[in-house]
């Protein structure tokens, strides 16, 4: 009989936006003086969200990152947690990792829990690899004796016996991560909580991380995995939780939850970028709208493999620019850039522009493997970045019949499909 090893009950977490970044002692004295004198607090936040949930967001500087989240995890379960940015994944993870305390609710855990929000936490550049293995292991709660027992295994796994007594400041960043992961992989917890940050590094390293996680899960241990990468979730997890706006939105088999998650964001065929936050640039112009269109010029969010995708970029100029350069970057589900489309490569010379422009990048015969892709857009002029909203749109590529029957596309072995011609050479 399986037993419950994690029990989450009515977990909520409130952030007070007002105190983020700290306060000055003077401010607090001011506030309390004002209260004492019966005046209005000069530092009180103005209510900007009149329509918000009045019960909980009674003060506008409060934000509920998690609300009444409850679930049970049974021993040996491998659970994926997905959700958009701000859905509460990180907060849930932080609470389970005891990095921060919940506002209300309770979590009960049975067994030793190891939480990897990052590999190599606390690595010190001046210390040798050996010393860092011990330090890092201790930070994750291992005793010296436990680390000593596993030390040889850890070193072997990392693959640099030779450099283990070299200060890690002489390591390349790749070596650093490998050693750090070697420690993490040997924590040997009963419950493992992993953030997708582990998915950094090269493909071989990612494969190794996934392999290790699958092995941990196979040993009957419990794994909680937070990821944006839907293929990872579907590959490893047996159950999936989707968070939305701080609450549990859907629970079930990974397939159905992932498709629910994707359908939620699939509507973004025409994205208003004016309010987009994650962007850099000098502000001479702003990319104000991005749309995805199919071969017929209709807005679409889903493209069968082999069809045409058009990216429409609408720009609003704050001043005249000469020959700006437009770019579209297509990222894989983990956010890694895959394709880079540049207007100059394809010969667009737009000349002097001001006011508003719209440009279109058309890609025929898209060979991207089925899955979800994210898009960043950029405008540059005179070698300077003008506006660069990141990961601001997304589209979906779906399977479609190939010219010679179904394409069997396993993302394990490829990311991009190219048509190739095969002939027999011995006849």
């Amino acid at each position, binding site marked *: 009989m*399986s*037993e*419950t090893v994690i*029990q989450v009950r*009515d977990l909520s977490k409130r*952030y007070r936006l007002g*105190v*983020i970044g*700290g*306060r*000055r*002692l003077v401010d*607090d004295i001011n506030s309390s003086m004002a209260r004492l004198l019966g005046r209005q607090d000069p530092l009180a936040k103005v209510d900007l969200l009149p329509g*918000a*949930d009045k019960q*909980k*967001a009674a003060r506008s500087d409060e934000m*509920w990152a998690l*609300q*009444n989240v*409850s*679930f*049970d*995890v*049974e021993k040996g*379960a491998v659970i994926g947690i997905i959700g958009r940015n701000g859905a509460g994944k990180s907060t849930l993870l932080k*609470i389970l*990792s*005891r*990095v*921060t*305390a*919940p506002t209300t609710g*309770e979590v*009960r*855990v*049975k067994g030793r829990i190891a939480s990897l*929000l990052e590999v190599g*936490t*606390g690595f*010190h550049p*001046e*210390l040798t690899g050996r*010393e860092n293995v*011990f*330090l890092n292991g*201790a*930070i*994750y*709660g291992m005793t*010296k004796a436990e680390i000593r027992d596993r030390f040889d295994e850890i070193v072997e796994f990392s693959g640099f016996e030779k450099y283990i007594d070299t200060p890690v400041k002489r390591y390349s960043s790749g070596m650093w991560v490998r050693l750090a992961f070697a420690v993490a992989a040997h924590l040997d917890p009963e419950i493992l909580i992993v953030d997708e940050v582990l998915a950094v590094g090269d493909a071989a390293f990612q494969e190794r991380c996934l392999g290790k996680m699958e092995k941990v899960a196979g040993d009957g241990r419990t794994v909680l995995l937070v990821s944006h990468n839907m293929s990872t979730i579907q590959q490893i997890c047996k*159950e999936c*939780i989707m968070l*939305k*706006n*701080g*609450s*549990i*939105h859907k*629970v079930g088999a990974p397939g159905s939850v992932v498709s629910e998650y994707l359908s939620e964001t699939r509507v973004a065929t025409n994205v208003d970028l004016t309010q987009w936050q994650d962007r850099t640039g000098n502000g001479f112009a702003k990319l104000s709208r991005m749309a995805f269109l199919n071969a017929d010029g209709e807005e679409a969010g889903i493209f069968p493999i082999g069809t045409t995708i058009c990216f429409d970029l609408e720009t609003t100029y704050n001043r005249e620019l000469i020959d700006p350069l437009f770019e579209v970057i297509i990222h894989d589900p983990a956010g890694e850039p895959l394709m880079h489309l540049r207007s100059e490569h394809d010969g667009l010379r737009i000349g002097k522009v001001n006011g508003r422009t719209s440009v279109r990048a058309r890609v025929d015969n898209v060979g991207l493997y089925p899955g979800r892709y994210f898009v960043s857009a950029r405008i540059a002029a005179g070698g300077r970045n003008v506006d660069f909203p990141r990961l601001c749109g997304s589209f979906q590529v779906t399977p479609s019949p190939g010219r010679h029957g179904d394409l069997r596309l396993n993302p394990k072995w490829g990311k991009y499909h190219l048509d190739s011609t095969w002939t027999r050479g011995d006849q």
Partner: protein
Amino acid sequence: MSEHGTTLNIEKFGSASEAKALSAEADDWTLIIRPQTGWFDLHLADLWRYRDLVTMFVRRDFVSFYKQTVLGPLWFVLQPLLTTLTFTIIFGNLAKISTDGLPKILFYMSGITAWNYFGECLTKTSDTFNANASIFGKVYFPRLSVPISIVISNLIKFAIQFGLFLVFYFYFLFRGSNIQPNSMLLMLPVLLLLMAGLGLGSGIIVSSLTTRYRDLRFLVQFGTQLLMYSTPVIFPLSSIPEQYRWIMIANPMTPLIETFRYAFLGTGTVSWGMLGYSAVATLVIMTVGILLFNRVEKTFMDTV
């Protein structure tokens, strides 16, 4: 906030009946995570379980310190030596402040060695949260292990400076200076413990407060300096007029420094009452510090 904002979701993996049977059966949870727990929920057992981490931190602090500086551990020796020299010239020879008839070098050096230990404990631990924000944000371990490791690392530094002091001490002793080591030397471990406790306690109070009041950080250096002048480091307690002496005695570091000096040199103002007061003050400051620190560590990450 959202259409799902107030719905209560209870989802179970596996059958409900199973879960029910279990909840009745067992209460052997190894970990319970709750909101801001009571003031006295200190998880001190956890701290003991992570004792290896404390030793790793101590090692890290020490190794990284001497690897990063050219002169390495020599700095530990140079700093009190130069300070002693400065004090001897300025306060001893120019300002001609009394040293209770003791050799000036020994008088200042004993004060500085003892004070440095306390001062370093205070200033270093007061930065605990800021200096470790990136680690604290990623992994749980008892946060107190950081300030405790700082206090221990400083003990190594103290040992080196103390060794230096002993070199001068024996030099003066054999030259037949007017110094009388006495039975108060047996109190040395207690004095060290109290200084460590005071430094740790006040350091973690400050570090807890700095998470809310950032500007406090800049006051620490200055405050420690100021505190030094209200402790008999550069002048003996006996040189203070009787009616103002209570101000000095109210500072719990005063009896510790005076006793430290008295134990080695045989001159000074020492009483068990004052030492008892120091001990009680240390205990109070430590308790307040640990309670505050424990309170802050749970939600500290929300404010950075």
